[in-house]
């Protein structure tokens, strides 16, 4: 170990891994519906796509978790993005490719991907 920067680099790299274990109220939560209907419609690849994309971009303040059936099985895989202090956004009929875009547009840049939302589908 030669410098503080070197230590900091290790710290940043592993930080995401351990920060999950601290109760942080202000983090964004991505909830993927993983009841029977969700899994049958292909929710698992969507979930892993979220995890992979977040890791690739080194985003640590986002928590990916599963949730049960919210009752709109025809729209599965359903993904909800909950940002503290903002309205919940519900994306429907998700695919891994769409998950990547949600991370890029919504999580990183803060722009909700309107055409993926439940609002766009039920119009």
């Amino acid at each position, binding site marked *: 170990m030669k410098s503080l920067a070197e230590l900091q680099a290790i710290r940043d790299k592993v930080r995401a*891994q351990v920060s999950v274990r601290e109760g942080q109220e202000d983090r964004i939560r991505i909830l993927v519906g993983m009841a029977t209907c969700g899994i049958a419609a292909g929710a698992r690849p969507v979930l892993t796509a979220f995890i992979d994309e977040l890791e690739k971009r080194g985003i640590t303040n986002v*928590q990916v978790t599963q949730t049960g059936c919210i009752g709109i099985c025809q729209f599965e895989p359903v993904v909800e993005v909950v940002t503290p202090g903002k309205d919940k956004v519900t994306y429907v009929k998700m695919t891994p490719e769409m998950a990547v875009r949600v991370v890029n547009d919504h999580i990183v840049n803060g722009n909700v991907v309107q055409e993926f939302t439940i609002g766009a589908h039920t119009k």
Partner: protein
Amino acid sequence: MYRSNVLVCGGTGCSSSNSQEIMRRLEEEIKKKGLDKEVNVVCTGCFGLCSLGPVVIVYPEGSFYSQVTLADIPEIVEEHLLKGRIVKRLLYQETIDKDAIHSLTDTPFYKKQKRIALRNCGVINPEVIEEYIAMDGYSALGKVLTEMKPEEVIQVIKDSGLRGRGGGGFPTGLKWSLAAQNDADQKYVCCNADEGDPGAFMDRSVLEGDPHSVLEAMAIAGYAIGATQGYIYIRAEYPIAVERLQIAIQQARELGLLGKNIFDSGFDFDIELRLGSGAFVCGEETSLLASIEGHRGEPRPRPPYPAVKGLYGKPTILNNVETYANIAQIILHGADWFQSVGTERSKGTKVFALGGKIKHTGLVEVPMGTTLREIVEEIGGGVSDGGKFKAAQTGGPSGGCIPSKFLDIEIDYDNLTEIGAMMGSGGLIVMDESTCMVDIAEFFLRFTVDESCGKCTACRIGTKRLLEMLEKITGGRGEDGDIEKLESLCHYIKDNSLCALGQTAPNPVLSTLQYFRDEYVAHVHDHHCPAGACKELTIYRVLPEKCIGCTKCARNCPVGAIHGNVKEHHFIDMNKCIKCGVCMENCKFDAIVRE
């Protein structure tokens, strides 16, 4: 990235209830479900709630599963990890409030705690140095080596008010400055991990759960006093702690956090382990240093203190594990932050190992000044099996008893010393009304008699005679004047022993005499044990009016001491009775009494 972390306690308590196997099964099951890329299984140190082990926590939800068995694993993986449904029936009951599940930190056990020394225990994997670094580990060492002068480091520790957590409460900063002032070609930093009190396991838990915090603090101490070599003296009876320390030292060396020219500052520091074979006297500083040198573990007179002439005759500082566990936090957050926790003369927190007749046996860390009542009744969940609090014993064989009238005393070094107990290393044993105080004193005395190194006559022979007198009293052979003889011998031993072992050995007797003298009197004069614990002073009797002659007692008596025909009143042959109490436990009609 993993979306979920499953933490399995790998402390000694949970390990002995099979947590290693549980971890293996979890990994297996997770792999079977194809979740191994998303879910990370982590072995951690102690969470504190040892009585509920084995413990498994699932993050990000923070679900606290207690008393998990191998049969529960598929359900946790299938329901929680795959489908996202928390398995309520396995949750720690106190985290469930009606239908809502609240966080572990809101439960009575954790709410009043403040974790400084134990901050990483149960959070990180102690065998992965990167996890410690992720929790700001080694940044205190980095800060010290790149930004601070040695005297500044010592000043911060002095200002923080940190006092030795091994029991004595000597100001840590002062100890460091004394060693720093003495010029020498070589100085040493030593760590006392020879935790010997019966019922104490604080240091073991820190070393098992967060070994790097001790290594980092020792390196900081080395820089502060000008030492380049550290030794950790740990008892070989702590195999998990020894193994994790070895791994930790190896990893720190690989990353260059121990060794030559750390942080390019020109500072060299390395640490080695020295295993002790479990002699209690080696917890005393001069004996410990003698043992590291390879000599017999015997104390020597002080002065010269180790800060002047310690290991191999060189200036040495010796601190306890828990003391070191506070150091990095003080450097990172500052002396004022540490000062803000605790009482006027005792700063910071103290870790206690709760044991005895208490609901939540385990490890807790509370700010100094927390009352005994808060620790026992709120955090500890109260006396187990509905018993009534009688006294708490702190400080092990060197300490004393705190009777119920002092339940509201604020715990710090000075308050405890004032009432004849002591902080000690942190063992806190709760006793209820079924505990005989004379019997307790005898128990601790038997320990010190075994552990006296034999150097001082007062300790070697005095404690033996003291034990014999106690045995006479609990054996029902006490005579007038015995209590007075006991007292004067106690003072003689205290005054004529070289080290703390002998000086404090009579404390359990003196403090029980101070607060429970009536029990001694009852033993000596009435040959009666009020708590009914001393076997030779109690008899078991069948109450004829209640006995229906079911024969259960007779069938269960291990020595065949109970006679009687079916449907007739039974009786106990006291010549054969070994007073095990099995008959009383088994009687459904409360027809057997102990007197």
